[in-house]
């Protein structure tokens, strides 16, 4: 049942591997899948370190036979980013939870970084990474991976930090009483406790990452144009060439890839991570995965998990010998050291303020700030109207679905899939429509912002509606509660906290999407809507770093303000007043 247990002891794991000598049908299937993935992986990895000139020699073609290779390159990029995000999360979040000083800096930083429009980063990172690896594809690759990383790392780290903070005190005390070293404690308590939330978050972040893959593979910053082989640049090429068929192929490939990694990678991990859920009652419904079952039946699971066990043992090698007892809570640091720390933080803050102010004053005038804020207001109106419209449409539909378990079961994964699907690949179709009917871009480009993010509202509402207790619904039925009264007293309170979560995600995503949604092109036709998104997009294309920074800064402030002043109070209100438990 528990392979990780065996991996801690080399002998049983080895004897299990020996049993592989008796092949079965499952073995064959698993072997073929693994081999195929391996070959694709090595081919794609080869390309990632090739010299830069190969990009010019072998530009992205629209040959559908190249698509699997492009898809693999893209997937590899995403997994590289996911790996980096996971390492970042484990190190930074653990540091923040264990050290008071580190926590004071890291936690607010993560909170703010979550609200920064990620696409704004691209401008800076591409230049930086290309300088880091001159003349190699690796620089551009790194920039693209970093873009995806920035879309995943902050909220993964934040969620892991929150998990660590919610570890029950008695378990922490047990690790101290039994003198577990910090490393052992991390492996035995922190990591398992945080795993389910981390896996779930990684899955959601991966979905979000697609959006940025498409945007980051083919990027122009000032005079630098970099086009990496991948689905994103295939799509970009198709859009420039106005090749309708190629767009459709790219979309299809993307859908296949999303289904594939969901089934082959995330489902098994979710099924595996279920054992780490902190609960003391055996749950009836456990997550299912055919791949996980396959791995378990072929006894390949210990082999797959062996590297994890090895890393754990490697870490334990650094464990100090004597089991020293530690005291609960932070030991008070020396007052002088405390002072020095405070002074250092103050110096860093002042220094940063000075540098930023000098830079901004040098390149910008007050009018730029006014322009940016005005444009942000335009975008804000769009976001508000769109969230309201999407809520009007999806809340009733979501409630209807959520109250019918048979439907909810089938449609919930679909809604999650739609949320994962990068909506920016559908933009060309909208552009064609706008051009064809000569519509006003200021209005008709707006829906693009919410195209990909509205699904968060839908699947959260479905989840909320299915969580309304049956006895409440029966009570409402019994007293003939119908119509508006039913909505007011049963449905809306029932879904409220879920709805707020969904709307919060959707609104944050829409701000982010405005950077690609307010300025779109199809072939040589460019459509631009007024707003902060197009302001940032245009500044990026012309390589105007100061304006990109200004735009990103203003947008971050707006998103933060939105979260702090609207969504969080609403969420707190819902938690306080409308909890059904």
């Amino acid at each position, binding site marked *: 049942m528990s392979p990780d247990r065996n991996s801690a002891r080399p002998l049983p794991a080895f004897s299990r591997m020996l049993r592989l000598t008796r092949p079965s049908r499952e073995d064959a299937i698993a072997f073929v899948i693994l081999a195929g993935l391996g070959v694709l992986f090595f081919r794609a990895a080869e390309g990632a370190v090739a010299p830069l000139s190969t990009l010019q020699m072998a530009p992205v073609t629209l040959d559908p036979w190249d698509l699997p290779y492009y898809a693999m390159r893209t997937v590899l990029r995403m997994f590289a980013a996911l790996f980096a995000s996971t390492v970042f999360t484990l190190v930074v979040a653990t540091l923040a939870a264990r050290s008071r000083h580190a926590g004071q800096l890291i936690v607010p930083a993560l909170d703010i970084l979550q609200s920064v429009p990620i696409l704004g980063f691209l401008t800076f990172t591409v230049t930086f990474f290309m300088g880091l690896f001159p003349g190699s594809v690796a620089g551009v690759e790194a920039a693209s991976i970093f873009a995806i990383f920035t879309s995943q790392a902050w909220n993964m780290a934040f969620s892991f930090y929150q998990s660590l903070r919610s570890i029950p005190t008695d378990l922490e005390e047990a690790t101290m009483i039994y003198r577990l070293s910090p490393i052992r404690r991390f492996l035995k308590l922190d990591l398992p406790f945080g795993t389910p939330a981390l896996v779930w978050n990684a899955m959601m972040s991966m979905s979000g990452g697609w959006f940025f893959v498409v945007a980051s593979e083919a990027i122009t910053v000032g005079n630098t144009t970099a086009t990496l082989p991948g689905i994103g640049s295939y799509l970009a090429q198709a859009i420039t060439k106005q090749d309708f068929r190629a767009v459709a192929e790219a979309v299809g490939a993307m859908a296949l890839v999303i289904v594939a990694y969901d089934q082959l990678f995330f489902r098994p991990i979710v099924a595996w991570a279920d054992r780490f859920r902190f609960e003391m009652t055996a749950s009836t419904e456990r997550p299912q995965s055919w791949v996980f079952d396959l791995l378990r039946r072929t006894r390949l699971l210990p082999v797959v998990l062996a590297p994890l066990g090895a890393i754990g043992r490697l870490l334990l090698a650094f464990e100090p010998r004597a*089991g020293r007892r530690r005291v609960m809570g932070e030991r008070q640091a020396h007052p002088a050291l405390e002072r020095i720390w405070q002074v250092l933080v103050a110096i860093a803050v002042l220094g940063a303020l000075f540098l930023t102010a000098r830079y901004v004053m040098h390149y910008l005038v007050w009018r730029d700030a006014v322009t940016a804020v005005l444009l942000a207001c335009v975008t804000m109106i769009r976001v508000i109207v769109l969230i309201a419209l999407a809520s009007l449409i999806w809340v009733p539909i979501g409630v209807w679905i959520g109250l019918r378990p048979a439907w909810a079961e089938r449609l919930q994964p679909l809604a999650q899939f739609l949320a994962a699907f990068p909506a920016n690949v559908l933009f060309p179709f909208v552009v064609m429509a706008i051009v064809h009917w000569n519509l006003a871009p200021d209005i008709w480009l707006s829906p693009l912002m919410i195209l990909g993010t509205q699904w968060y509202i839908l699947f959260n509402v479905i989840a909320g509606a299915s969580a309304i207790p049956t006895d409440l619904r029966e009570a409402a039925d019994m007293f003939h509660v119908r119509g508006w009264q039913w909505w007011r007293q049963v449905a809306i309170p029932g879904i409220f906290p879920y709805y707020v979560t969904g709307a919060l995600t959707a609104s944050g995503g829409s701000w982010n999407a405005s950077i690609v949604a307010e300025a779109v092109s199809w072939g040589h036709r460019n459509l631009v809507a007024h707003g902060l998104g197009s302001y940032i997009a245009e500044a990026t294309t012309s390589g105007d770093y100061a304006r990109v920074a200004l735009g990103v800064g203003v947008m971050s402030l707006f998103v933060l303000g939105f979260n702090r002043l609207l969504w969080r109070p609403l969420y707190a209100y819902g938690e306080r007043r409308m909890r059904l438990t």
Partner: protein
Amino acid sequence: MATAAIAEKPLLVEVKGLRHYYSGQDHLVLDDVNLELSQGEIVGLLGRSGSGKSTLLRSIAGLIRPSEGIARLVPGPDVPDPSVAMVFQTFALFPWLTVLENVELGLEAQKIPAPQARARALAAIDLIGLDGFENAYPKELSGGMRQRVGLARALVVDPSLLLMDEPFSALDVLTAETLRTDLLDLWSEGRVPIKSILIVTHNIEEAVLMCDRILVFSTNPGRVVGEIRVDLPQPRDRLDPAFRALVDDIYARMTARTEITAPMRDGLFPGTGIAMVLPRVSTNSIAGLIEEVDGTPFEGRASMSELADSLQLEADELFPMAETLQLLRFAELRGAELVLTPAARRYAQGDVDQRKALFAQALNQHVPLVQHIRRVLDERASHEAPARRFRDELEDYMSEDYADETLRTVTLWGRYAEIFAYDEEADRFSLEDAR
């Protein structure tokens, strides 16, 4: 187990002048606690929640550094390097580790070679009666079984001192009894190498059943207010008259000490006037307790231990209720006896409106905070006042948590008695609905 024999045994734990503050310096949890624990004895720390007994346990375990004073294990000739293990109220098992892995946890951390650790863990599992469950996960086990795992995990590291933090309070009565008996058997047969056991409990009978010595703690701040030696031979019988007498004696002591620590005639809770800390006792509990004592067989006069039995309440739960009755002059605590006043007898016979009227009268006369809130509301033209105002006022006298709980209790009582109204959303008191 003669007293003299225990006294000759070498010392294992020494606590001197221990003080502990929570949340900075404003809330004293433990005040000047002194304690000596010898080898070979089981000592109980008995007190209500908030008496700091768990804090004391954790100071001895080395989990908490006390603000003042020392708590240490004393090395002796036969225990050169004394160690502790702890059993938790909530078991504190790792749900992702099997029974065996949970038990091996402490051995692994001590870098004991795997085969040896495995053998010792299996022996401990065997000893505690868990064979066959080695590969089960905690969620597959019942509460009693889980606590057995907790016990095995503690015993396997060969501690000199076993600390138990309300180890049986999360279990049902029967399971708890079985576990207690099993542990006492292991102890008296000398099958476990532990030298002493220190057990925190708020269950008086449990303390009398298990301990050689019981230390009674007061609340707010926690102090040792009594020490009782239990010389009854093991196994002890709950129905033995000597046992009952001892339980009654402890009830009486726990009642008596409240009169010593709170000399003000206002009541028994720490603080006076509006600064009195009120426990969360619902109006239903008050009504239920009055009805119980008023009815047969008590007829207005009940011993606390019998009351606890008949209501299936622990001393920890019963004392705040009884003291609330005393505060409202609905009852008087005489030794270990609770005697209803005429007002309470009338309350028991009254209908809803009469009960409310009696309750309101008692509140207005005996709970200064209720009078205070009512006066403020009467004086204001709007007849409204934010609750925040009173909470801040209370925080001048007590910690934030106590202020919050006290105000909640008063809100509950005041609303029931219709002395004032409260709007949770706006966090305001008013006279609006009260009239």
